[in-house]
């Protein structure tokens, strides 16, 4: 019961947009597709949607080649757009009907979602009369209205103000709780880090890192160790020729693992350097990203 991409490849002319992309996403899990602009995220998504046909490789849903007719997908494209001259309710009903909903349930779903996103007053307005943020909400409704099994959100947070971004985050969370299979693509790590169990970091079409987010962080190879700095710590570190980063009244350095940290503590302790406090954190996704895709 999962979405599988196996050694998927796609080239446009001489650019190898996606190379040997392989991922296994069990049903009900969230995959974060990360990478800079042009890394191949949207191309991968378009192949899952069947809009592009891979040059090689397979895309499977529950073990069989993914068939768009059989699985309901909610797709929020990176480039946003609506029928500018049509009424909001008309086009939402149209999108719902194209997903096989009947008129009545479409109308109910429209009312439900407009209410939920706090924009019921825009139901009979033309899309062109709405602000950009509200148009994005309408698009989100278009993505979710038919209660899809597989949700693909391409850069969902771009262009949203903090309030709307929070609202979107809570809706995504809700969808995750409803055991929807979700693919999120972004170049802003911190926004999607909270949702994703699995991440896949892409660079120039290639997969740089892939796997369970907590495992990646655990095994990434270093921890960020932060110590209070009253001058003595700094001096000692300099004396021992260690690389560190000096913050306002803290120093930050990278250690391989806990044992290296404890070793450092005991050296400081034996040199009678007091340790007022310390913290040791896994690298953030952002750090991993920046290091990996540079």
């Amino acid at each position, binding site marked *: 019961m999962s979405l599988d991409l196996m050694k998927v490849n796609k080239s446009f002319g001489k650019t190898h947009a996606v190379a040997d992309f392989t991922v296994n996403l069990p049903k009900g899990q969230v995959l974060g597709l990360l990478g800079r602009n042009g890394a191949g995220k949207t191309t991968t998504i378009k192949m899952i949607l069947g809009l592009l046909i891979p040059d090689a490789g397979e895309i499977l849903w529950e073990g069989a080649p993914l068939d768009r007719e059989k699985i309901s997908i909610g797709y929020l494209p990176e*480039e946003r757009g609506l029928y500018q*001259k049509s009424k909001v309710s008309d086009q939402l009903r149209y999108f719902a009907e194209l997903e096989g909903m009947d008129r009545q349930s479409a109308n109910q779903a429209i009312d439900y979602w407009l209410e939920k996103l706090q924009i019921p007053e825009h139901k009979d307005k033309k899309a062109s009369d709405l602000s950009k943020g509200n148009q994005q909400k309408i698009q989100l409704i278009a993505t979710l209205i038919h209660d899809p099994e597989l949700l693909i959100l391409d850069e969902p947070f771009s262009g949203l103000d903090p309030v709307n971004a929070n609202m979107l985050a809570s809706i995504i969370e809700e969808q995750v709780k409803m055991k929807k299979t979700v693919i999120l693509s972004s170049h802003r790590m911190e926004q999607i880090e909270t949702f994703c169990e699995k991440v896949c970091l892409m660079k120039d079409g290639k997969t740089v890192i892939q796997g369970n987010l907590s495992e990646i962080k655990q095994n990434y190879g270093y921890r960020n160790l932060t110590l209070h700095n009253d001058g003595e710590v700094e001096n000692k570190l300099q004396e021992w020729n260690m690389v560190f980063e000096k913050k306002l009244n803290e120093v930050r350095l990278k250690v391989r693992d806990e044992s290296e940290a404890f070793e450092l503590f005991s050296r400081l302790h034996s040199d009678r350097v007091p340790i007022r406090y310390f913290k040791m954190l896994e690298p953030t996704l952002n750090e991993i990203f920046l290091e990996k895709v540079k």
Partner: protein
Amino acid sequence: MKKFAAIYKFHLKENLTSKAFKISTAIIFVAILAFFGYSNWANQNDSGNKDSIAIINTTESNVNIQSLNKGLEETKLESAKKNEEKKFREKVENGNVDGLILVRAQKGVPALTYIYKNFPNNEAAPVVSQALQQSYIADTIAQNKIDSKTAASLLSTVQVKDEVLKDTSNTFGIVYVFVFFMYLFIIAFGQMIATAVAAEKSSRVMEIMIPKVKPILMMYAKIAAILTGAIVQIAIIAAAGLIAYAIGWLDTNELSIFGSGIDLSNLTPGVIAAFITYFVLGYLLYAMMYAAVGSMVSRTEDLGSSQFPIIMLIMGAFFIGMRSLFDPSTTLVVVSSYIPFFSPIVTFSRIVAGEAGTLEIVITIAILLISLLFINRLAGRIYVHGVMHYGGKVKFRDMIQLAKSK
């Protein structure tokens, strides 16, 4: 099929409820009624307002003005006294009288001078001169005591009888109207398709649509929806004509366009069927090309230059169609009627002119259908790839590449 119906319904509603559709239809409707209303009003006013022309006759030959007036439709003749020439000349100059006819003897033969200000009345002078001639001849016969039989045989004229084998002059008006409408509809509704596709693309709503439906289905449904809109508009135009006819504003015998009469007797069911057939086929052919072009551009602003080749084709068809008004059997017209891009207009005008035989109709329809299949595949491929292709200006090379790719 359900999806097709949903797309068709959505675009039809969008089309029929759009401001552009409502306004243009209202304008056409009012314009047609106004046109017939005005021409009816002008006709009525004309009949009560005959040109008045004065006659000053200084000869012996007698002209019976009263009996002449009975035969004149647009002119009222008035007799004036012999010494009033100067006064009437001034009246003509001032516009109080529309004309003055002076009948004077020149070497014993009556001669006629017609004086008018700007535009001559074409009816009066020939009628008066004929009456004058008859009266003069009768007088001469009587004076010279010529035998009436001799006189009759002397007077008999050589007769000219027209025998037209194929008279294109009476189909001229109707072909003109239909060729023009065909051209107008194809270009107007074709452009509507291109704009709709390009707008869908440039507004990026296409990104939502393409995962939901096969692009080719969208293309067909949109073409069908706009065709329906076109037919609704044609029906409204026809309704305006019928209303004008019902009120009595439309005199079918006097219908004309730019002076060439429209003979509605040429409007047989066969011709109407041919119009619909060729219009639908021609529309589909051009609609697909327009859809392909619309799918190639990323912004609606780029549409103008990209659709130029199509406009060239349809303009070519229009001008060859116009050529066939005057001469439906020239080589250019005959050859063009077999070229699918031209045949909707050209072959149709040849049919109305009575030049196209059954074989020609069958062959051109077959050619049209075959090219429709071909264009359908080509345009379909360009469309499917074009809608996902964003970039700068479209090059012809890109188009070929898209058509080749599967």
